[in-house]
């Protein structure tokens, strides 16, 4: 008996519903883009807020779930992106909407020298070390009188535009950032680099022995995550108009990101999406409870990590095989063995 194994199997990434979901996604985005034409202004403001939370969480998730680096200091890049946008907008006359992108780029570039220090640490110590770095950023900007020091300042560059236009444009930019972020992460993870990342996450030494450059991969992820965080930060304060070091560099950003990712599911794209929606809903209904609300979030995060490690989406994926942004590769046999 001769078994000819060539052309008998293929590696597939999508699934039956991929085409349908892509069309659906296109419709959703187009529908969303039309929002400023018919919705109240508060809706757009809400969306910008959620967008920032989501992008930050998505990037934190990329860093932790795929890069294997848990950071409590991503707010450093969030705030840096924001302040870059502010300085460019207020003092150099750059259009703030353009400055958002520049903010992201600057954050990404700064993350390179920062990584030289941060990567000296691992695991839990890496997490706290990044927090220290974020604190250095915060304290530095607190002492910078150019941007109002500890009290903060306002974004004056958008003063010329009327409120309605400003809100619409902010909204569209936010939508663009969300789509771009998802696209970047999705393409990155579907590629060979994504596969390499998974290998590194599971077993760095084995990955290295297979020829994967662990060091440069980790740096790549760190830079992309910093870029995304900077983007989110700049976007947030274009929406908010008022900035201060304590708000821009607050560790609460990371706390919320952790919460969103834990609830939604680690290591998956859909996780931060679900998590940010859940977080937004919870904050809508319960944030009036102040300290109790935050305690509830904390307790929920503890409970979920202990008993529900894979998060909501991870559970759905395990239980029902759902996948919205398929990045996993499946081996499929095309035909039976030839005899």
């Amino acid at each position, binding site marked *: 008996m001769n078994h000819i194994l060539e052309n008998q199997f293929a590696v597939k990434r999508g699934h039956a519903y991929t085409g349908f979901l892509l069309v659906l996604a296109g419709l959703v985005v187009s529908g969303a883009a039309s929002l400023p034409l018919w919705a109240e202004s508060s809706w757009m403001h809400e969306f910008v807020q959620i967008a920032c939370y989501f992008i930050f969480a998505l990037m934190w998730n990329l860093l932790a779930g795929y890069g294997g680096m848990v950071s409590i200091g991503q707010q450093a890049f969030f705030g840096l992106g924001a302040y870059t946008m502010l300085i460019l907008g207020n003092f150099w006359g750059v259009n703030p909407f353009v400055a958002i992108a520049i903010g992201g780029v600057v954050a990404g570039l700064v993350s390179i020298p920062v990584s030289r220090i941060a990567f000296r640490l691992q695991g839990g110590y890496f997490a*706290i070390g990044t927090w220290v770095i974020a604190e250095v950023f915060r304290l530095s900007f607190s002492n910078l009188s150019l941007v109002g020091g500890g009290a903060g300042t306002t974004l004056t560059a958008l003063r010329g535009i009327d409120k309605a236009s400003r809100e619409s444009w902010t909204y569209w930019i936010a939508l663009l950032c969300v789509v771009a972020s998802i696209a970047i992460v999705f393409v990155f993870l579907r590629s060979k680099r994504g596969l390499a990342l998974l290998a590194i996450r599971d077993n760095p030494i084995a990955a290295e022995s297979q020829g994967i450059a662990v060091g440069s991969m980790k740096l790549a992820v760190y830079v992309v995550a910093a870029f995304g965080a900077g983007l989110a930060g700049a976007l947030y304060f274009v929406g908010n108009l008022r900035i201060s070091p304590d708000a821009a560099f607050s560790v609460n950003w990371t706390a919320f990101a952790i919460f969103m990712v834990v609830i939604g599911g680690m290591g998956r794209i859909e996780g931060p999406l679900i998590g940010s929606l859940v977080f937004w809903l919870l904050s809508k209904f319960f944030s009036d409870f102040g300290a109790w609300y935050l305690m509830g979030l904390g307790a929920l995060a503890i409970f979920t990590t202990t008993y529900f490690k894979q998060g909501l989406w991870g559970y759905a994926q395990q239980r029902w095989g759902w996948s919205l942004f398929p990045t996993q590769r499946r081996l499929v046999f095309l035909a039976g063995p030839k005899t």
Partner: protein
Amino acid sequence: MIELLLQGVLLGGLYTLFALGLSLMFGVMRLTNTAHGDFIILAAFGALWLAALGLNPWLANVAVLPLAWGLGYCVQRYVLNQTLGKDPVPSLVVTFGLSIVIQNALLETFSADPRSIESHGLNTLSWALTDSLSVGVLPILILVIALLATLGLQWIFEKTRLGRAFRAVSDDPEIAELMGLRSKNIYALATAMAFVLIAVAGVLQGLRTTVAPADGPMLLLFAFEAVIMGGMGSFWGTLAGGMLLGVTQQLGFRFDPGWGVWAGHCVFLFLLLLRPQGLFPKTR
């Protein structure tokens, strides 16, 4: 200059106390407790609360210690033990969650106002060393306690059966089980000890200055910096790290009040770049 160094060393004593508990928990179980600073603040508020209930304030300060032992044991045994393993994420997330819960619970119960523990003048007493130089009695006391605590921990680890168990479990938890040690129990004892140190630090902080519910994270960062700069695996190293941080911050404060903490952070990062293993690492 001498005065500056002296103040730095005294501050370093307090930072050492902040750091010893963190060093202990990481040394035995590779656990990073991001709520470490919040537990310090919790201890201070615990003493305040006991005093408010009517207990003699000095008795309240001491009573927090056995309570801390119990809390540490239970937290490790029933919450943190589940998070131990190869993945650092669960312990980070759970302790971070605890941090948020503690801060907000304190906020609800006590309001955001800073308070201090009644010291009946102890925190203003000073001792004149020379004509121009005098030091506070409380800071000296804190330094002495820090030295005793370091000595005590070092002795426990090197000379006692429990310390031997700690080292074994830290080296190889699987083989330690083979010897008859129950790692769950050992971990809980380590955290219980760490929490007593945390309580001591909290009470002293409350006596020395004020405590507020949101102060925790700052203290965590100081403790962390002291541990890393000193070198992992060595309690004397943690003492050295605490001293270095204290002196650095004092120098920064003298320059400009806004730059004290910042200077400490920068020296930490600088040292991390040049000598990541710290000043006195124990080779494993």
